[in-house]
């Protein structure tokens, strides 16, 4: 028989926990709802498809969208071979397990560093040498995302059964052929997940880019864009809200970013599920 005091205690604990849960849920819903409600009415085709013009007093975010796309492409093109290559080396070739452990630990630690520090270092190394430009920003983002790609690929490489490697070696395949034909196809899911997570991080990054990539809103082609200063959507959001007081535009960008990151999370989940099903 449970005493009444005990019952009251259990009931209170349960009540407090459900309160915490509903508060968390409500806060999230409020934030998403507030941004979308204030932002979406300000998203117009004109905003998305034009550049800002002082003459006609018009604000357009096309340059910022282009810059974001350019910086994502440039970062991934550099970070993918580096990250996947490092992961393959550490998992398949490296024989000194202690050094592998240290590198893995360093990579974990690297992903916990505040991004503004990456920005500071990126500014000193890249921007001071090549000027403030998207490419300097992309290189900074490469350093930031290298651990993400590397660790995801590595974890995925470890799930490729040893029996596959043995089977291929047993047929007389050399090391590289085993990696290319049996090991790498088995870790595509990790690479794809790493990519999606990286795109999410790049999309959301502002601190590191404020230092390195600049604030300009000029629509350029890919090559020209990379070599000149430019704001990505997140940086543009900061500039419009903080320095120009254009809150309609800021909320419009916020709504767009919110929807994009929801889509990215959704696709990461879907990719993971799809590969889990395939592996079963």
């Amino acid at each position, binding site marked *: 028989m449970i005493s009444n005091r005990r019952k009251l205690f259990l009931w209170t604990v349960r009540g407090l926990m459900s309160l915490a849960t509903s508060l968390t849920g409500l806060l999230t819903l409020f934030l998403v709802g507030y941004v979308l409600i204030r932002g979406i009415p300000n998203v117009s085709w004109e905003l998305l498809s034009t550049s800002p013009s002082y003459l006609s007093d018009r604000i357009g975010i096309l340059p910022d969208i282009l810059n974001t796309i350019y910086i994502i492409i440039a970062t991934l093109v550099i970070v993918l071979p580096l990250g996947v290559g490092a992961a393959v080396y550490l998992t398949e070739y490296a024989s000194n397990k202690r050094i592998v452990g240290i590198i893995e630990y360093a990579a974990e630690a690297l992903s916990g560093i505040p991004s503004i520090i990456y920005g500071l270092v990126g500014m000193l190394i890249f921007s001071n040498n090549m000027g403030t430009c998207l490419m300097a920003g992309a290189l900074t983002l490469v350093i930031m995302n290298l651990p993400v790609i590397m660790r995801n690929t590595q974890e995925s490489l470890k799930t490729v059964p040893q029996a596959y490697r043995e089977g291929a070696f047993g047929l007389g395949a050399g090391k590289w052929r085993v990696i290319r034909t*049996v090991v790498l196809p088995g870790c595509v899911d990790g690479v794809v997940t790493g990519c999606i997570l990286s795109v999410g991080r790049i999309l959301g990054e502002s601190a590191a880019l404020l230092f390195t990539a600049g604030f300009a809103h000029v629509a350029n082609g890919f090559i020209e864009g990379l070599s000149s200063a430019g704001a990505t959507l997140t940086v543009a959001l900061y500039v419009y809200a903080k320095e120009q007081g254009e809150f309609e535009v800021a909320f419009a960008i916020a709504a767009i970013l919110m929807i994009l990151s929801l889509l990215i999370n959704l696709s990461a989940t879907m990719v993971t599920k799809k590969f889990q099903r395939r592996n079963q």
Partner: protein
Amino acid sequence: MKPIITAKDLCLWYGQSQALKNIDIDIPECSITALIGPSGCGKSTFLKTLNRMNDLIPGVKITGTVKYNGTDIFAQDVNLLRKEVGMVFQKPNPFPMSIYDNVAYGPRTHGIRSKARLDEIVEQSLKDTAIWDEVKDRLKKNALGLSGGQQQRLCIARALAVQPQVLLMDEPTSALDPISTLKIEELASKLKEKYTIVIVTHNMQQALRISDRTAFFLLGELVEYGDTDQIFSNPADQRTNDYVTGRFG
């Protein structure tokens, strides 16, 4: 019969612990040799030495010689050795690709590109392992969809596709049901017309049913090696007698 594999004074260490002690053995061509003994006796280790799969394990040290067709296996190209001395593993391990690509993997590895030639090899290998009729309509389907027994016969076909001389089998039926086991045994008996088979088994009935020669391993030593009938009916060593009559192991 002429020996195809000859080991002399073979010793093997995993780090500090010695797993094989002074093994001397001649394995005759076109026959089935069974390696028996309790767990940890070194029979699998010996089998894996024959195509140098032990190279993959760090810290392995080997002394003595193993000759395949008269040449030292440790002095030749390991990938060419493994093409000649193929391997079938304890658990069926088809690659996660189509049935066709599984069988074609080995020939492609060794440079065969012609589609017609590959088709021919795949068909012949699958026929040799008596699985052709079961899979000929779904060669492009993923091999992981086959049953365990079919997967193991596919793995044998995959090993045969590179035209080896010797087939090493590491407890190939221990993960299979009795019917699939019988199919693999029947297959092995048929394959010995063309290939030399060395099979590790925990199942003494299996050794008795299919092998011509039997080697009994204990604690890293080769205790006794002789004709299967003699080993099982009239062993020379007391320890062999105790093991084959089921007194330990």
